[in-house]
């Protein structure tokens, strides 16, 4: 008879339990969720076997929300309340959306980010995106049979700070713990690179439904190093649809269509475009609400001509990325195509001609981003050691602040490897000036009005001095998600002001909590239970991590008294962890974090020393 196993006291029973983590590709047109199962990255299907969730959200008058196919099915009947391509609105104001403002929405201007008026109330793009993410979270939890430890959410590499922050807010609103925001081309490179064990410099050309990215990456001995990135966060397959739509309007001498007819024609335009990837011509037939019959034949040659300048824009970005990496097309070993829009033959042709080689398409361009994100999520959740590869990514756009005359002084240049920090000193303009307004901007242009305004804040309490003699040190810190925080400090008196850059629409933690509560009012008890479980999971992970650290390095780095203090905090946490007081658990977690700070520093020092110990001085000269 097999003997039952009992673990040693103080050790968790399952120290290497698999943590459920997913990668999510939150796309303009479709969204996907993937995970690593038995060592293989796999896209998770819905109960009907579909992998792609159309990024479409429908709000009904009764307050119910449909997402995906169901929402797509009603988009022509109920265009005002069916939101498609919401990704284009993330972190964007009304003035930013330009050409697409003739879409059938009732857009509401709001500080920082526009909102959409629906029958169920005014919704922000963050809330709409959260609905999509919730469906994917539920799909994953159902499929994996448990709650997720966290998720990696992909974003276009060319997303600025406002767009990234909006994406992270949406994930939190959907109840996801964001392990990392990962750039889409980088995610694709992980999926490709690990598959093919490639070495050399690669280009990733990622044309999605509404965004375009190009990244130049160097792959060598397990390091993915992004050399440069470029793109256009408002260029994608949607724009190709729009060209066909405009052609239909012109052919049929139509103007001022109703929202319903606009949606109908756009849907047919897209279907026509997709047909042309397989056929040399396509027939577009539709009946408008007034009974007018649309019946046109569009040839591939006509389509290519009308969309040629869109392709040209992507090539410009490609050339800029290469120049930033100080490389030419000949230096590129392989070109990876990502995004459904790269199925268009004239794009494959243009890219093939540009690089003088056939682009790689052996992984499904719709799935490759989610597959790569899942691989990274598995590492970040701690399921496997990431010793075998390292990801070095960059910020896409320079960050700076406004100086006199409406000019931007760049503080962190584009394509800096993240995390990154840079400090610069500024001074006062007037005698006796006691406050300074710090205006944070992102972009490449010299004028403030040509860059994106991320945040404004004030540093007060500067001691009055002669103009030009105060020294104000402004520090920018970009974290591994590509998100910025800014600190300003007056150097003589040490007055300090700090903000995590939240675009003016930015949601505070309290607002997110409130929105979460509102959205689940009838399921409040569920939510409380969930919060408790999440707190318990976090506490258990913390205990395990500290336990492992003590076993590895406790005797080496800490004296008996210091170890005892940590053990006391651990015991305190263990006594409350099974209870139902989630605040008590939270306090005990914080206390344990506090008591291990010094230990963590010592461990970090040790690993830094060991990193260089293998190299003899003689090798370095």
């Amino acid at each position, binding site marked *: 008879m097999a003997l039952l196993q009992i673990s040693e006291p103080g050790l968790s029973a399952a120290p290497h339990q698999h943590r459920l983590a997913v990668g999510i590709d939150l796309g303009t047109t479709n969204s996907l969720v993937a995970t690593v199962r038995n060592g293989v990255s796999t896209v998770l299907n819905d109960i009907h076997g579909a992998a792609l969730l159309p990024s479409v959200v429908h709000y009904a008058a009764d307050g119910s929300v449909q997402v995906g196919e169901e929402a797509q099915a009603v988009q022509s009947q109920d265009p005002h309340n069916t939101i498609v391509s919401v990704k284009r609105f993330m972190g964007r104001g009304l003035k930013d959306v330009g050409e697409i403002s003739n879409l059938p929405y009732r857009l509401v201007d709001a500080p920082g980010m526009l909102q959409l008026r629906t029958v169920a109330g005014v919704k922000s793009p963050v809330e709409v995106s959260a609905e999509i993410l919730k469906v994917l979270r539920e799909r994953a939890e159902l499929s994996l049979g448990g709650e997720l430890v966290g998720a990696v959410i992909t974003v276009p590499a060319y997303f600025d700070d406002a767009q990234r922050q909006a994406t992270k807010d949406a994930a939190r609103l959907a109840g996801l713990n964001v392990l990392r925001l990962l750039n889409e081309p980088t995610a694709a490179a992980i999926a490709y690179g690990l598959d093919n064990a490639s070495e050399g410099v690669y280009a990733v050309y990622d044309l999605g439904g509404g965004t375009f990215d190009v990244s130049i990456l160097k792959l060598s001995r397990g390091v993915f190093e992004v050399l440069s990135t470029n793109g256009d966060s408002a260029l994608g397959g949607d724009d190709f649809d729009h060209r066909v739509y405009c052609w239909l309007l012109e052919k049929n001498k139509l103007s001022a269509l109703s929202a319903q007819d606009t949606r109908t024609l756009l849907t047919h335009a897209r279907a026509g475009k997709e047909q042309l990837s397989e056929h040399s011509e396509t027939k577009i037939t539709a009946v408008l609400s007034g009974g007018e019959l649309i019946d046109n034949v569009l040839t591939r040659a006509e389509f290519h001509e009308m969309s040629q300048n869109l392709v040209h824009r992507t090539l410009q970005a490609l050339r800029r990325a290469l120049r930033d990496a100080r490389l030419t097309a000949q230096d590129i070993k392989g070109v990876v195509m990502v995004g459904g829009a790269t199925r268009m033959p004239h794009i494959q042709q243009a890219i093939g001609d540009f690089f003088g080689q056939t682009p790689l398409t052996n992984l499904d361009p719709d799935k490759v981003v989610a597959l790569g994100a899942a691989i990274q999520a598995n590492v970040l959740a*701690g399921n496997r050691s990431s010793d075998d590869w390292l990801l070095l990514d960059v910020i896409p756009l320079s960050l700076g602040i406004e100086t006199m005359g409406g000019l931007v002084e760049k503080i962190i240049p584009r394509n800096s490897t993240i995390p990154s920090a840079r400090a610069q000193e500024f001074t006062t303009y007037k005698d006796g000036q006691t406050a300074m307004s710090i205006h944070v901007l992102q972009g490449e242009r010299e004028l403030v009005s040509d860059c994106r305004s991320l945040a404004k804040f004030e540093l007060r309490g500067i001691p009055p001095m002669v103009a030009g003699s105060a020294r104000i040190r402004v520090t920018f810190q970009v974290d591994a998600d590509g998100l910025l925080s800014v600190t300003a400090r007056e150097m003589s008196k040490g007055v300090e002001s700090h903000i995590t850059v939240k675009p003016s629409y930015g949601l505070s933690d309290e607002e997110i909590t409130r929105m979460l509560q509102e959205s689940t009012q009838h399921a409040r008890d569920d939510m409380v239970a969930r919060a408790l479980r999440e707190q318990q999971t976090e506490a258990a*992970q913390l205990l395990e991590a500290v336990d492992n650290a003590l076993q590895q390095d406790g005797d080496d780095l800490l004296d008996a008294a210091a170890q005892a203090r940590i053990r006391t905090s651990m015991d305190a946490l263990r006594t409350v962890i099974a209870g139902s007081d989630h605040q008590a658990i939270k306090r005990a977690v914080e206390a344990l974090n506090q008591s291990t700070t010094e230990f963590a520093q010592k461990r970090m020092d040790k690993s830094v020393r060991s*990193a260089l110990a293998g190299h003899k001085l003689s090798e*370095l000269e």
Partner: protein
Amino acid sequence: MMPANFQQDFFSLFNLPRRFQIDGIALEQAYRDLQAQVHPDKFAHLPEADRRLSMQWTTRVNEAFQTLRSPLNRARYLLTLHGVDTQEESNTSMPVEFLMQQMEWREALEEALQAKDMGALETLEQRMQHETRNLQQQLAADLDDTLDFAAASGIVRKLKFLEKLAEEIHAAYDEIDN
């Protein structure tokens, strides 16, 4: 409180001798070895204290790498370690022949831009790169052999001019392309 070796200079951080001429391959290898230990991806599942430390360390390692990788930044940093102010803001007296050459190059840049002439830009860029390499060789002699920091500061100021011009040439490529 930062641990003591967080304060060590960038050369010792990468275990490199404190010289202008460094082994680029050794620098890159040391950078990657350090990143492999401190990068936030290795700490995402660990407690907040570890994650915060990881971000601070990675930020510092990145800053150190950016500083040592670029010859101009490296020279400037070496001079700072020697307590020498390069006077890039205050000292604007440049040799006349250098200024003449700068003006000539700026005119060439302007003409290439007007004519949208990529070939002319490339020629200009090559001439400038040649000059940059010459100056870097002089820097190596001044910083590593004769320890003439005043002369080295003068070259740093010249290189700063050239770096600015290189950025403008880079931007000109984009402008012609648009």
